[in-house]
């Protein structure tokens, strides 16, 4: 099997996790897509540097993290002193997610879905409307007949509950404190 074929199989396997990582760092979807593509091309050019005894996903994310910081610099935004720390923390969480059961990244997200199913009804609805229906908080107020403040509060609390729940599942709370 050619090196490029092996590379293609590896990147397909890690593509979803990589995009999740990049979108954690860059919210603009077009820019994230550019960084995603650049990451894969950079990885291919540097394949000889990849230690085959180590996992491929963290290596890809290492490249993506540097490119994301470069993207911020290009836009005239000096990366914050702790941004590299945050990138490392996100990376470690994704490594923990990769270790969950499931063949695909989406199967590994069962942990998140389970956490979502345990949210109180109004919080579940807020998350559903925000992410599944892609409604902004102002639009959610129209559907739920709640005030903007209430919607924001529900989203905030829902996210906090989800974060706590996922951290419990990943058991990373202990390792990061």
């Amino acid at each position, binding site marked *: 099997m050619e090196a490029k074929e092996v590379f293609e199989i590896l990147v397909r396997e890690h593509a979803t996790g990589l995009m999740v990582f990049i979108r954690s760092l860059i919210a603009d979807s077009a820019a994230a897509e550019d960084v995603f593509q650049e990451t894969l091309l950079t990885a291919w050019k540097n394949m000889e540097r990849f230690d085959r005894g180590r996992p491929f996903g963290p290596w890809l994310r290492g490249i993506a993290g540097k490119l994301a910081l470069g993207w911020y610099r290009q836009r005239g935004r000096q990366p914050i002193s702790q941004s590299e720390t945050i990138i490392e923390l996100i990376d470690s969480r994704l490594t923990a997610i990769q270790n969950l059961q499931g063949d695909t990244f989406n199967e590994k997200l069962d942990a998140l879905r389970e956490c979502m199913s345990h949210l109180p009804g109004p919080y579940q609805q807020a998350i559903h409307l925000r*992410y599944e229906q892609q409604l902004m908080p102002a639009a959610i107020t129209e559907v739920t007949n709640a005030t903007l403040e209430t919607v924001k509060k529900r989203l905030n609390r829902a996210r906090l509950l989800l974060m706590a729940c996922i951290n419990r599942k990943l058991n990373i709370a202990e390792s990061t404190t």
Partner: protein
Amino acid sequence: MSQNNDRNEPVEHSADDSSADWLFNLNFDAPDEGKVLEYLQGDETTDPNLVADALLLHSLLLQNAGSLHDSTERGLQRALSALHSNDQKLQLEEELQPTSQSIVPATEARVHREFRSRWWHQRGLRMAVAASVIFVLFTFFWQSRLPSAKTLLAQAYEYSLALLDREYQVTLRRGDMSMEGTLLVRGNEAFLLTVNTIAGQQTFGRNGREYWLAPTIGPVLKSDSRYWIASILHQHSGGLPYLEPATVLQRLQSDYKLARERRVDPKTNRDSYLVTALLEKPEQSADFLRPHRVQLWIDVESGRTQRIVLERHAPSPLRDSSGATLFDGTLTIEFNRETSTLAPDYYRCESRFPDRAILSRPWSANDASAVPSAQ
């Protein structure tokens, strides 16, 4: 109507939510997304764990909702295409470079001629054996490298969940009868099926929460019961309530024996995966409307489900004039186009039929008989 508030809603978290308010009040999707990091720059007391959790959770929720799927696929395709085109360029450059040839003195060639002849003979045999082994290995690899049917199904299901508006051509054949319609689907949230009948156009829809039917004449009927739409579809189009591709793909993940092969789609002439699903124990299936055989044609390059063909051959004493049982039929859902520009209220009956009365009530499956016939 009174406004809801959160005063008495349960809060079960250990973190101090007020400390995270600033983070979540930022608009992650705004073009000026650098705000999050800029904000952090001025606040060194912020716990980086909290920031990392929040940023990752937002991204995970986007992924879970299917919002990242298309950009991932696009980025992947673009990168791989760039790699392939770069390879072709390099190959061309290599071909254009002059090759250096070693010049063997004639005397030396004469000395070694006999030896080389024997060596080539032996080498030829070895090469023939090696070629056979490589061929067998290549064939094995080629087959084993095909993604499993389950993986293909999971990928197709994931693809179908994207919140994009996709248009399909729907054709139902039952005996001599044939019915065509246009189906518009948004992920597994909403759909709109327009069917042309003898009496005129009839529209079924789902707006994410409710199902509705706009008959040729009369008021639009709306219900929050999925059984209602299933009953109506069965009553008016010979059953097969498997309209949403996402629903079809989800239901195939259990109770079906799956097989896959790589073929050229005869309709599109494109490299495709053909996944065939056979219902394992039809006689034991609680859902007698379940298709017995489903074929999915998945485009290799785009990963898109191009066509779904659902066939049902249920044993039934009820037969029509053509001899087919009342539950026999073939439904073909063929992809037409994709768009993400439709208005959010496109699937609401209130928007589509603003001049018609809307009857809304909690229907049950038994109420299906009360629905006016479509003629």
